[in-house]
């Protein structure tokens, strides 16, 4: 009998706990499809509502930084960020489940069609720049500048290069260890496109990983190591790895905020985009957020360890947002 009572007590405790927890917070979870009534529309008044962002895990730190700063100024608004991947993000975006999609690649035709089917109009809004750094071990003093052709020799499909002296006879006899991004990532797509001329075109026998910190570990642990990842991982790991200069045809250029922004660091500089939907921009809090995102891009990119946009890029983004919000729907 006591076992029954015990069960009853446990059950009651659970019910009580949930009751307390449920009644504790305010009500109201708005989803991306909510109408404007749920958010305040008064000019000069408090903004409120929920903004849903999802997509690439590369762009997510930017959106998170923007969300944090925006929420500090507009405490009535809640911004949430997910990382189901660029593809997963677009799928949810075109189903109307999210307001803004983070993307580390351009939207593809299938996805464009899906959005059209559901009546979702969008714009590709640039929010930052990023550079892909080619990194080597600090003891590697011979490959401090690599041309794109040399990179292609190393990374191209079918390449059998496994020693540095095969890249350039003046390089020492040092075994090469290759590390890189997993094939499912936008980083892989961008690197192969820029270096080998075609997305997805790459040798397949390198150590692939989803986590760039692991690439750092791999390259720093092996004298002949070479890898590639976004600029944000370079500065945080000074001493463990060194970014090689890349010669894109106009001389050796070291990757840095300035060279990426100016476009000198080529071809491994890339823009990063978000895709807001026209429906979402009809809501004042979303519009305010996207405008905030662009206007404060200097501070946001700094916090997220990316590269800021140039003034022209900022203006272009602002215009796109205005057109989508104004005449888009």
């Amino acid at each position, binding site marked *: 009998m006591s*076992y029954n009572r*015990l069960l009853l007590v*446990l059950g009651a405790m*659970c019910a009580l*706990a*949930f009751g307390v*927890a*449920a009644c*504790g*917070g*305010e*009500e109201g*979870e708005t*989803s991306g499809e909510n109408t404007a009534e749920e958010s305040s529309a008064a000019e000069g008044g408090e903004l409120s509502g*929920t903004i*849903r962002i*999802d997509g690439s*895990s590369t762009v*997510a*730190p930017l*959106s*998170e*930084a923007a*969300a*944090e700063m925006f*929420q500090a100024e507009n405490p009535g608004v*809640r*911004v*949430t*960020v*997910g*990382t*189901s991947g660029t593809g*997963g993000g677009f799928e*949810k975006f075109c*189903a109307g*489940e999210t307001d803004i999609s983070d993307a580390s690649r351009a939207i593809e035709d299938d996805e464009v069609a899906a959005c059209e089917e559901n009546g979702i109009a969008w714009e590709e809004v640039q929010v930052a720049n990023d550079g892909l750094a080619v990194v080597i071990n600090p003891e590697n003093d011979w490959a401090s500048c690599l041309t794109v052709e040399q990179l292609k020799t190393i990374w191209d499909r079918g390449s059998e290069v496994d020693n540095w002296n095969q890249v350039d006879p003046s390089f020492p006899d040092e075994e090469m260890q290759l590390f890189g991004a997993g094939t499912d990532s936008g980083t892989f797509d961008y690197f192969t496109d820029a270096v080998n001329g075609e997305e997805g075109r790459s040798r397949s026998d390198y150590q692939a990983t*989803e*986590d*760039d*910190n692991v690439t750092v570990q791999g390259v720093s642990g092996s004298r002949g190591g070479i890898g590639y990842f976004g600029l*944000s*991982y370079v*500065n*945080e*790991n000074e001493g463990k790895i060194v970014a090689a200069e890349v010669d894109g045809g106009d001389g050796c250029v070291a990757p840095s905020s300035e060279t990426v922004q100016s476009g000198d660091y080529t071809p491994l500089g890339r823009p990063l985009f978000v895709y807001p939907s026209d429906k979402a921009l009809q809501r004042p809090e979303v519009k305010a957020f996207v405008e905030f995102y662009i206007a404060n891009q200097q501070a946001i990119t700094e*916090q*997220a*360890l990316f590269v800021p946009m140039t003034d022209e890029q900022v203006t272009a983004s602002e215009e796109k947002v205005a057109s989508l919000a104004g005449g888009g729907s």
Partner: protein
Amino acid sequence: MSTVDAPIGRGPQSDRVKGTLFRLALLSSLALGLITLIALLADVVISGAARLNGDLLTNFPSGIPENAGAQSAIFGTIWVIGLTGLMCIPVGVGAAIYLEEYADRERWWNRAIELNIQNLAAVPSIVYGILGLAFLVRGAFGLGQVVLAGAMTLALLVLPIVIIASREAIRAVPPSIREGSMALGATKWQTIRRQVLPGAIPGIATGSILALSRAIGEAAPLVLLGALTFITFNPEGLDSAFTVLPIQIFNWISRPQEEFQTLAAAAIVVLLVILLTMNAAAILLRNRYQRKW
């Protein structure tokens, strides 16, 4: 443990040597698990010690490591795992009772259910994420990317563990107990409720411990469902957006800044504390109802 510790007299020398070696082998098996556990815990606690303070519990996620905390993830985990337990344990035990007590083993559909449950235990967790996205978040249930959908998905994921463990526990209750109860005039359900289930509680408790331990550590299926990586409020109801600690941990581990690695380790410690607290109830029950037949 046996009531007799050593047989009458001592056996031949070779037997004793074998016996000692055997005992050593067993002890080293146990030691393997314990040593690994200690190594892991030490590694995690030492790495995370710097950030194991109140900030972790009171702050929300942030891009600035000094300001970051895991409050939304902690509450999200408590909500999701609490709901998961509430759903998977009754359903799992119910299914186990049905399969052991009521189902005719010769019928093909009951054997199909048995095979089915075993198979489900091997399906990778991310497939459950796809399942949840298709049928719970969208589709038939249409719940949206909310706490309830996440909990239901996890409950489905760990259900086979509960069912299999509970089945074994129920099976271990000697038939004489059931027969005695029936002979005294109890109905089948009365027998189950008052004799079989109490005897099976230890095994069921083990099953629920293993199931919730599995559920609390899952990240990938929830990410697919729409659990967030950045959220600055706690869940407010079953229909609330959410995140969980493993997602937060994985997110922090992948960041370039060193301080985030420390935060990740601290969050792991918090996760283990939550797990222990949740399992404590089951462990107490198990110890209380442990019996020898």
